[in-house]
């Protein structure tokens, strides 16, 4: 599918090796605005490594990564977040001792402009910013059905709520692209269905493009416009979900059947 407009997130020929092992080889992807793309593959295929490279945790050996024209290679993770890429983690990384509200408020900090002096003297600019951050955070929590738990410690949340909180937090940075790493992990079919609706809402209500790593084939096939399949770091297939499902190489990589059916 040729893109008439240049993609929002353009990843070209990215490779990275650890020691002697090539974790990702020649990975390319063009994610358009409002796109909802999936990244699948067996365990250890290099999917999370791709996320880590995109967010600046690792620097790739080769390739380019551009977000809305901005070259991201070599930038530190917090800068990449500032340019509009946010993520969730395979193993949930919340701020456990802090409240649910604070978890989201922290993600608003990168857009804050009031400095140290303003904070110390409690100047108007600081207080205004605090008000805006609180409002914005509470609104986000409400959208994610977490408003009632705003004051609770993040670590005390049930698992499903924690995953939702991580996504809410990722949205608080006002991103252009959101990387979701196995958001449905550990969820039952009912929860997964709700998650699918939530992810769709992210696209429509927040206008973000989404790249999704998932093992739940049902979820991927249901909501993704486009799917890329990795195996041992190599892209073995890329295209529309229906085509991918029938692709013999993909089937072979997964040893015959998808891991879950919706």
């Amino acid at each position: 599918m040729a893109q008439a407009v240049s993609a929002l997130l353009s990843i070209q020929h990215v490779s990275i090796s650890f020691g002697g092992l090539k974790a990702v080889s020649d990975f390319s992807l063009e994610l358009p605005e409002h796109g909802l793309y999936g990244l699948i593959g067996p365990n250890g295929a290099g999917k999370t490594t791709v996320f880590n490279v995109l967010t600046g945790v690792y620097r790739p050996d080769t390739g380019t990564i551009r977000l809305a024209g901005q070259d991201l290679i070599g930038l530190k993770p917090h800068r990449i977040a500032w340019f509009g890429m946010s993520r969730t983690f395979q193993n949930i990384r919340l701020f456990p001792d802090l409240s649910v509200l604070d978890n989201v408020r922290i993600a608003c900090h990168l857009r804050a402009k009031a400095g140290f002096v303003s904070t110390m003297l409690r100047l108007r600019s600081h207080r205004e910013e605090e008000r805006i951050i609180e409002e914005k955070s509470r609104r986000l929590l409400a959208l994610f059905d977490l408003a009632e738990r705003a004051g609770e410690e993040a670590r005390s949340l049930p698992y499903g709520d924690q995953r939702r909180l991580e996504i809410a937090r990722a949205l608080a940075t006002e991103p252009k692209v959101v990387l979701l790493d196995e958001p449905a992990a550990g969820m039952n079919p009912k929860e997964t269905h709700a998650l699918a609706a939530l992810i769709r809402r992210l696209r429509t209500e927040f206008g973000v493009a989404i790249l999704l790593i998932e093992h739940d084939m049902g979820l991927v096939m249901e909501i993704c416009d486009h799917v890329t399949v990795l195996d041992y770091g190599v892209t073995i297939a890329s295209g529309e979900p229906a085509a991918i499902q029938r692709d013999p190489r993909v089937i072979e990589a997964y040893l015959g059947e998808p891991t879950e059916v919706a």
Partner: protein
Amino acid sequence: MMARSFLGAVAPLAVGFALAVALHLAAGSLIAPFYVKLLMDIGINVILAVSLNLVNGFTGQFSIGHAGFMAVGGYAAGVITYYGSFLLFGNTHVAEGWLTGGDLLFVGGCLFGAVLAALAGFVVGLPSLRLRGDYLAIVTLGFGEILRVLLQRTGDVLQTAEQVEKAGVGTLATSLGGSLGFSGLPYYTDLFWVYVFVTITLVVALRLKFSSLGRAFLSIRENEIAAEAVGVNTTRLKVRAFVLAAGFAGIAGGLFAHEIGTSLNPRELGFQKSFDVVIMVVLGGMGSVSGAVLAAIVLTLLPEALRGFSEFRMPIYALALILMMILRPQGLLGLREIWEMKWLKR
């Protein structure tokens, strides 16, 4: 509107200032000298504990060299007041009067000490805060040791006004008494100045904690990788916390140096002192400002209470530390302030 926000910004400072004045006036007549000294010690320890809490508690970095920054501040302030007194007054007696020449020289010295200590914090912190937690601990310990060795190699303190007038800045800066310490510093520290600085420290710490910037600090302690992912410049903030804490430790050092009944020497401000402050922060609750204050008060009073058993003080602290880590690792208050504790909400 402007007046209201100005009032809000200044109110806590005014309250603290008033308290400081009250204490100072009471010191002469209402409070016995023994208790005056105790209150000064408490105040200094509060500044130390609350400032170390910025690094160890807020950002979760493990620094055990806080006394080193105290030493930098103390010695720098001492140079200003001691040699400055010679140059201005011809002697090193305490120039009488509140907020007059001598007093201002002292405060100027303390502030200079704070700036120098903050600079030292920057030099030490910038390279080391990139390292893993336990490595930072060793570097801060090493910094304290290097400082101690350097201080022990300094020359004798100059004794007369003539010597001081003839000496160049370099000589003055290195005539710090060596192993014997910097003796003869005028006793400018009083309850007023101690509690003015305590107020400033507390206001800064609390306003920081309950702000977006403060939450960003806390996020580093909670999960550094996630913090980076949501846009927090973790290295820059870690260094900022470190520099700020070092600056306050410098003030505490200046106050300590000019306090009656203390001696400013390299041994006194070595790792033993650093550990004392770490113990306060850990026991009070890492991240809790009121916890640090409480711990500072208790751990300043305890040696007095245990006067008869002074050799048991350290073993008891050590045991308390170990038990705390095993049974209640978050310390007394954890991250919460004393007014946030659940048992208060009924």
